[in-house]
């Protein structure tokens, strides 16, 4: 017998932790934007992102991609830790007890609420050991300089770190389609390092994401 009273733990039914109007808060006196946990948030204008790209290009040249990738790696590791803590605290149960679909639903909403675009996880190739993250309206793709190649180095770093933490083992991430090159979305291929051998060369050879997946899984 299901008892409605028993389902209400402390009278709570957890919902959408990252709902925009619940997650983002402002402190008018101190001039701070915070999340519902009190961690500071920052609104970043488009021009700042363009300025970061321009400054890095000027100072580091071709190393820009590596600098941004490593920034993403560091961010991704901390993002995973904070994301996990927030969900664990809110839902009152360890992350390991959460279903994949609930986890991804929360991650989607988190991505959206932070203004990083939309996030989807494509599990079409999961039986071959690959996941594809699809991000649309990425601020990093829309404001990067034209490099005639995928340019979301920061996000690539974030996902490599985030999914490594989630999987409990080192996985790589390579971007295989990019909005800056006219693609409908930014696709990030995630898999074990040895399974992604040769993918960078396929990207440099300007193969489409379908061709790349065809060669990997064909």
């Amino acid at each position, binding site marked *: 017998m299901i008892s409605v009273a028993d389902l209400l733990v402390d009278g709570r039914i957890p919902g959408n932790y990252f709902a925009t109007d619940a997650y983002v808060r402002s402190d008018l006196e101190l001039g701070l934007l915070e999340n519902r946990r009190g961690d500071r948030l920052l609104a970043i204008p488009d021009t700042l992102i363009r300025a970061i790209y321009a400054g890095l290009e000027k100072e580091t040249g071709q190393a820009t991609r590596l600098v941004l990738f490593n920034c993403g790696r560091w961010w991704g590791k901390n993002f995973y830790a904070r994301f996990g803590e927030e969900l664990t605290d809110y839902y009152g149960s360890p992350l390991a007890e959460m279903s*994949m679909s609930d986890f991804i639903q929360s991650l989607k909403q988190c991505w959206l609420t932070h203004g990083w675009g939309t996030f*989807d996880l*494509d599990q079409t190739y999961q039986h071959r050991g690959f996941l594809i993250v699809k991000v649309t309206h990425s601020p990093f793709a829309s404001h990067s300089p034209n490099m005639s190649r995928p340019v979301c180095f920061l996000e690539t770093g974030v996902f490599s770190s985030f999914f490594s933490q989630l999987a409990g083992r080192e996985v790589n991430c390579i971007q295989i389609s990019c909005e800056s090159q006219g693609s409908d979305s930014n696709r990030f291929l995630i898999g074990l390092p040895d399974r992604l051998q040769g993918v960078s060369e396929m990207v440099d050879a300007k193969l489409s994401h379908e061709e790349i997946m065809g060669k990997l899984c064909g």
Partner: protein
Amino acid sequence: MHPALESVFNEAESRYLNANELNIVGGYVESIPDRLEIYRILRDEEVNILQPVVDQLQQKFPASEAKRLERSTKNGILSLRTCAMGMLLNDQGYVQERIQWIKQTQKNNSLEDIDQVFYPLLEQQLNKTLGNLKMKLLQDIFQQVQSALLSDESSSSSSSVNSSSSPAAPDPVDELNLESLF
């Protein structure tokens, strides 16, 4: 805040409200005591409203479906609380974002068949508890929720799990354990 009221309040720095706009504000303010009364009933009678619904659900579905029934019930509690707050604020926008979340949860857990039975039963129980007059203030919001959850449309333009045009893939992994996946 109700979008009409929000847009009216945001005009304050430009001008005073005109007669029509003041009527909008006045109308909402006058309805607040009724809305508070309905909200209190929904809050205080939450278990009494939902338990008969759940009891009937358990008669219609086998015991093996207990886990899904529980999940549908939790979603139902959340839906009703969202309705209550949406009614209090008179804000369908508030409801819309939250219902999209519940819709995705429904899809993730394949609860559509249970919800097709749950929400009509819930509506009957609400009519019984609130009566026709009070139900009028809740009706629009409840219909918004019920329509969203019982429609066949996907919850958003993109879904969490995407099986696209490539060769037929097995069912996605739903365990939060990617170690074995890679």
